[in-house]
């Protein structure tokens, strides 16, 4: 990637392994990565810095991903338009519909291969592979 300014991605997931797994995939493709452990922490982070994409889990303590999305999308702030990719182990159509109506731009079912995740992140940011 030749961009001078790196695209920045926030990973919101309570599982440390998932965060590391995503991080290594994304950093390898030249993304700058930050982490948050739950929805609440995620909201704090996106208010402090500008991100190009948020990858968020659904099932998390303190604040789940759906609540995170609803709060994010409820406002008409510039930050409310942040693209959000939901990744979850839940594969039911109802789970996907719920995430979508909360404002998820895409929904991927875990486990996700590192390459696939990095591909989607690149597309979200308008970068060719």
């Amino acid at each position, binding site marked *: 990637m030749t961009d001078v300014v790196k695209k920045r991605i926030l990973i919101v997931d*309570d*599982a*440390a*392994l*998932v965060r*590391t*797994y995503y991080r*290594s995939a994304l950093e390898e493709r030249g993304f700058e990565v930050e982490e948050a452990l739950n929805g609440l922490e995620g909201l704090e982070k996106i208010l402090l810095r500008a991100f190009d994409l948020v990858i968020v889990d659904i*099932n998390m*303590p303190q604040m789940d991903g759906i609540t995170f999305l609803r709060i*994010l*999308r*409820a*406002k*008409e702030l510039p930050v*409310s*338009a*942040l*693209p*959000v990719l939901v990744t979850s*182990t839940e*594969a039911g*159509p*109802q789970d996907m*519909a719920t995430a*979508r*109506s909360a*404002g*998820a*731009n*895409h*929904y*991927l*079912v*875990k*486990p996700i*291969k590192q390459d*696939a995740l990095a*591909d*989607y992140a*690149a*597309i*979200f*940011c*308008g*970068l*060719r*592979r």
Partner: protein
Amino acid sequence: MNEFVEQFLIESRELVGQAIDDLLALEENPSDRERLDSAFRAFHTLKGAAGIVDFAAMARTLHAAEDILAAIRSSEDLIATNVLEECLACLDLTSRWLDEMQTSGEAPTNAGSEADDMIARLVGAPDADERENTPLPGNEGWLERAREVAGQHFDGPRTAVRYVPDPEAFLQGSDPMAIVAALPQLLKIEIALTNSAVSLDSMDTFSCGIEIIALLGAPAVDVRAALTSVPGRTEIHELSPLIVTQAENDFQSKAISLLEAQLLLLRGAGVGGIPSHVASAGRTAVNALVVLGKSEPAKNVERATARAQAEHSAIPLIKAIEQALAVGGPNNREEQDASSQIQAPRALRVDMNRIDALVKLTGELVVLKNAIGHAARLSSENKESALSATLREQHTLFDRLATELQAAVLRIRVLPLRTVFRRFPRLVREISGTVGKTVRLVTEGEGTEADTAIVDALFEPLLHILRNAVDHGIESPERRAAAGKPAMGTVILRGRRDADSVVIEVEDDGGGIDLTRVRSIAAERGIAELAVLEAMTDNEAADLIFAPGFSTAAAVTDLSGRGIGMNAVRTAVERLGGRVEVQTQSGAGTTIALYMPFSLMVTRVMTVEVAGQVFGLLSIPS
């Protein structure tokens, strides 16, 4: 993947510890919801971690435990002692696997069968069907290998079978290979000697010393049916995909799926369009189009996003994305080269208009072909024998090729009904939820193909019919119980090909149409005279529901009682050159059938000869 194993082990041990603490605390105090939540989350996270290191057996086992905890979590029930014990046993097994993984650095090889046993314990005692699945001796891990062959992503059923024929099979006059040959949907087969150590010289040629492992694309029920003649000699397992099929293919199709996801998001956001949804979908779509090398559509989508925001409506953006998806191919050569390096797409997206032009040209070719046939006949009447014979011969060839060409071109416009059918299960669930009924939607024949224009136009009419079926057709649970029917209603959505027609049927097992009421409403609304109504057969009376200004809703619900009624359905269907029929039986249900032409591009013409001139009469749907 190795780089993650270390962290996986550390984290998984922590999670197992956490889950054990939670479960033990629950044993003390079963009503502690916080502990229950915490235990559930630990199982959930463990399952996710197992997925990352490709430890499928562990993921399956924990998934089964998680399901049980999730069910308890969403109910008011207290967790039962035996459930606690099974969950703890599951954690014991997990710890043992983690230990083995620590030493070997890899997932244990026999984990598959251990996982099966554990899942069976968690899910409960095996039912009668599964009883024959007591493992046959030998060949451990065969199922795990079959799972590997099947992969994690597949559509449709997959069943793994291990069949060890009786050593005496040959003497008993049974033929194991004939049995194997009769298995449904054979995908892969492996035949091995039960005792591979035996040498060729000492082999007993009268004893059947083989075992067969097969992977089939059929459900276990069908496989079991094919193996009833060899009880106790088989193990049958239906495999389930670990995760739903997901586009794991190339970069471009990911970008397209992302675009499609934005459409889903926008369509779900309602007519007004939630501003932040519109903004984020617009941004995502623009980026996906840039990746696809479609700079012009990307600009259009960008403009449409601004318009959608200004107009407080998602529609301009939806249209722009749909358009971008419809326009085929990358924009210019340079970009095309760049993207073809990424990977050549297997399917081509072509503008509908271009295909229609092809269809039209083919149609004209067919007309021309017929004219040549006519010329050939004329010349043979005029006894220009040498020329006419050649002409007739060439015409026959031309006829065959043109007909084949026409069929091939029409097939381009064809889509399986699945593309419209798959939208309904969720909608039916939602509709039945709002009216307080439980309804199961069964779809059949979704592979049946029809013209794109017809498939696209079917959504609204079918939605209307399905709404009616759920809202008016299926009775309330109380009435169903009184009639001795199962509480859950069934609606079947069926597609099938019938000669030149595609038939789509919506069949419910509800109360049927109340024809007495239909007659009285028709009289009330002045649709027909009472005398005429009384003279009508039941079928004719049922047809009245399609009459303009008719609505059977006793109570106007917010679902189907919108006053448009079935008349709108008939109008839409007839506009496409189809017709609609209803059949109803009191107490047993109603079937509404749409007979649609297979293609909109073929027109039936009646020819008439008047004074030596041939005329063709078109039948144009009103």
